[in-house]
């Protein structure tokens, strides 16, 4: 599946400063692996060695947090938008 991955803030640095990169994969985990193969070190910016997302990182499929879908196993369709964003507080 071909998807667009939007990144912001510090995560941009892991993909040579781009705001958006095209990636392939049937699941969110495969997309991260695909990006890791092209941008070594990318995976470590978003998850730990066991595949657990870093606490301060939220990954959204279109507009929904994948933690409430199937996590890294969340299936993707062609044209999906994946956003990797830092957690923010308000108040």
């Amino acid at each position, binding site marked *: 599946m071909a998807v667009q991955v939007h990144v912001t803030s510090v995560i941009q640095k892991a993909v040579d400063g781009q705001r958006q990169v095209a990636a392939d994969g049937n699941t969110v985990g495969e997309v991260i692996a695909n990006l890791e193969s092209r941008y070594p070190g990318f995976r470590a910016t978003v998850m730990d060695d066991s595949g657990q997302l870093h606490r301060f990182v939220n990954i959204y499929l279109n507009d*929904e947090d994948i933690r409430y879908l199937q996590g890294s196993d969340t299936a993707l369709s062609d044209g999906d938008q994946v956003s990797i*964003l830092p957690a923010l507080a*308000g*108040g």
Partner: protein
Amino acid sequence: MLFRSVLEMVGDTPLVELVGFSPNPAVHIYAKLEGQNPTGSVKDRIAKFMIDAAEREGRLHPGQTILEPTSGNTGIALALIGSLRGYPVKVVIPDAVTAERVEILRAFGAEVIFSPGPLGTNGSVAMAREVAAAHPDWFMPFQYENIENPRAHYETTAPEIIADLPEIDVFVAGLGTGGTLTGVGRRLKEYNPAIKVVSAAPHPGDLVQGLRSLEEGYIPPVLDESVLDGRIVVDSRTSFRLTKELTTRAGIFAGISSGAAVRAAQVAAGRMESGHIVCLLADGGWKYLSSGLWTQDYDVIEEDVNTKFWW
């Protein structure tokens, strides 16, 4: 209605149906109008609980200075209470907020300390901690860790919703400190475990470029993520559009995070067969007039939008 103080007017906010906002005619969306509180936001509830508890427990003494990191609303609510009860109030706020927030803080007598805008509220938290360490005699309620924050919602907001709409199926609110979602969510799930709690999160866009590492990210300890059943991210363009629609189609003048909450409610409604969704609109629109959102096209104001914090 006769009140002896504006602080007695906190809470008991109206719940109004948003007719025509649900993508599914069998799902009804209702808005809880927190802009009706005395300083115009939901934060009056937590400020009152945090200060009352500190006074009761002897942690806050007459004349003691109150310090708090805030993106605006909590600081404004604390400034009101401080002005009525004789506590000087100092707030740490990102310098990338609307001028109205700073003006209202000063109107209620608060001293404003600016933290670097690119670090957002995360930067305000860090700076307030430094200031607090240098002034151990000051009292910092610290909404991000203070259990009175979710407790205010557990004790007041949630029971009001249950009384007004016993058939509620889904509760939606914006994610700021997480106090609203945690407090309301816990109480609603005790009332009916089938109730779902969904948060609306702001898309940071090009903001927070100042974060040097993800470790500068911040998840408030008061947020109990186990209460959440979903999180919907909403970009600024969509938040602004729905905030405007609230005014033009429902007659509700609300702040930017309210547009995001309504958007998340619409997403939730699209996934239900039928039911009732309560969406909490955290504040009124007054503090956002300078954005131009009600009078200009988004494309015209977009650049300004992307340089400010909206909730």
